[in-house]
């Protein structure tokens, strides 16, 4: 099932699937990790869940369903599933207590550094790296039509212009602070600006990139959002002519 997606992208790792703030209580979203479809949802109490995106009854994608309090309801026959993917209610038989094995496979999920992380294998207890600091915010999710290994390699040479700074005398440092998480520091004089890129292997030729960047003001957020949009374009078109707009331009590194 996972032919070409590997070389570092193992199922036993945590992968970011989206920004925490983008998933409000009572909402769900689809996500794909290493070809596996997930439904990621937040219950009314604020807890995030990540499950196999398939109802055990007739196989409907759970992403068509809806959140009902602390359960996720399937859109086909209204079966309600609670913590751990356990079936709680079967509306066709209102008095019935569903058997123990009526359960959707649940994946490990956690929230860290403004992102939701899931593992479809046996990852550790929680995402383990130092948070990027209070000043970083969720900027945007990108989907890049390229292989995860390629996107990861390109991310390790991505550069940016800190908000409000000129272009001169910038020194960049790229570090992989956790598997699939790349931190880019740009130093000029005594100041450091940081961007963090969390790579999500979607399929063999599709990769998610979740961008955290500075964002005190609207202008600053727009500055980094525009950078992220360019990053995506140049990742998909790495042979495009060099331009000073190219976040992957060799000249700048």
């Amino acid at each position, binding site marked *: 099932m996972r032919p070409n997606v590997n070389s570092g992208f193992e199922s036993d790792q945590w992968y970011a699937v989206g920004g925490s703030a983008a998933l409000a209580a009572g909402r769900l979203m689809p996500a794909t990790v290493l070809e596996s*479809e997930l439904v990621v949802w937040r219950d009314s109490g604020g807890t995030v869940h990540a499950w196999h*995106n*398939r109802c*055990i*009854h*007739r*196989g*409907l*994608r759970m992403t*068509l369903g809806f959140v009902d309090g602390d359960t996720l*309801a*399937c*859109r*086909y*026959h*209204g079966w309600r599933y609670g913590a751990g993917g356990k079936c709680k209610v*079967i*509306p*066709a*038989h*209102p008095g*019935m207590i569903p058997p123990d*094995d*009526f359960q959707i496979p649940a994946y490990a999920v956690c929230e860290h550094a403004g992102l939701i992380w899931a593992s479809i294998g046996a990852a550790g207890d929680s995402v383990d790296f130092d948070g990027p600091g209070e000043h970083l915010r969720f900027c945007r999710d990108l989907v890049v039509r390229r292989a995860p290994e390629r996107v990861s390699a390109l991310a390790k040479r991505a550069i940016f212009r800190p908000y409000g700074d000129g272009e001169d005398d910038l020194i960049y440092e790229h570090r992989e602070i956790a598997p699939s998480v790349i931190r880019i520091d740009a130093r000029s004089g005594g100041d450091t600006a940081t961007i963090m890129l969390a790579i999500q292997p979607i399929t063999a030729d599709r990769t998610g990139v979740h961008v955290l960047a500075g964002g005190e003001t609207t202008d600053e957020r727009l500055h980094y959002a525009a950078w992220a949009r360019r990053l995506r374009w140049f990742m998909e078109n790495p042979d495009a002519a060099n331009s000073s707009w190219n976040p992957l331009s060799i000249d700048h590194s």
Partner: protein
Amino acid sequence: MTRSGDRAALNGWQVIGRIEDIPPGRTRSTRLLGQDIIARRDPGGTVSVTEADNGNRSLPVQERYGHVWTSLGTPERDLLDMPEFAEEGRRLITCGGITVRTSPLRIVENFLDLAHFPYVHTDILGAEPQTGVEDYKVEVRQPEDEIWATECRFFQPQAAKSASGGQISDYMYRVTSPFVTILYKTCPIRDGMWDLIGLFVQPMDEEICDVHSFVLVFDEANSDEAMLHFQQMIFLQDRSILENQLPARLPLNPRDECAITADRTSLVYRRWLRDKGLSFGAIP
């Protein structure tokens, strides 16, 4: 994909369009069980059907119940019998084919299902909290070899175009071949009579089909167009579900999906398909 080798599917009668979809002097190219076929109606009105890559072999054809039927094999049985088509005062509305990207067997199974009404046809054919499915009878009738589910009852906010206000509807379901199913529903305006709604599923490939449906009802209040729109609205609601079931093919092993008492018709349908050795659109 090439033509199926599934004898149980090949030897049945399948619908390939409505009668009016193949007017005199015209041809219609379509697909059946993985095989491209061409249907022609000569100016005199006779329909002939051949495989697209073999114009020499004429396939059997008949026109009945508003539709054109053919078979790639040798039909072992007659077409299903629906005597209601000869009854005075009924109106026939044929809805035309709607393409759905899933197994033809998933289509039939969805049609046999009461429990989805409150969630897929919300406030029309069902609504929370009236979600309970009462016990009903289901059997395979011999010698017809047809599945019948009877004594099905369900609360419906707007059971048909002609219904005003909620009612308990009585249903019977009938499956006459792997791809043909009929629903009998209490007629809201004639005591003791049944309205018919039927699906003739045209299996094109294992995960794509055209669904031809009809309504045969007593109804004096609504136009054909209004009834057609009602049926299409209902079916488009089903389609959004049907194209999102994983896997698209119907698993015939009862352990592959979790079933409950309300699913007995579907369990009988799957076992009946397995007993026939039907594999087109199925996971054995």
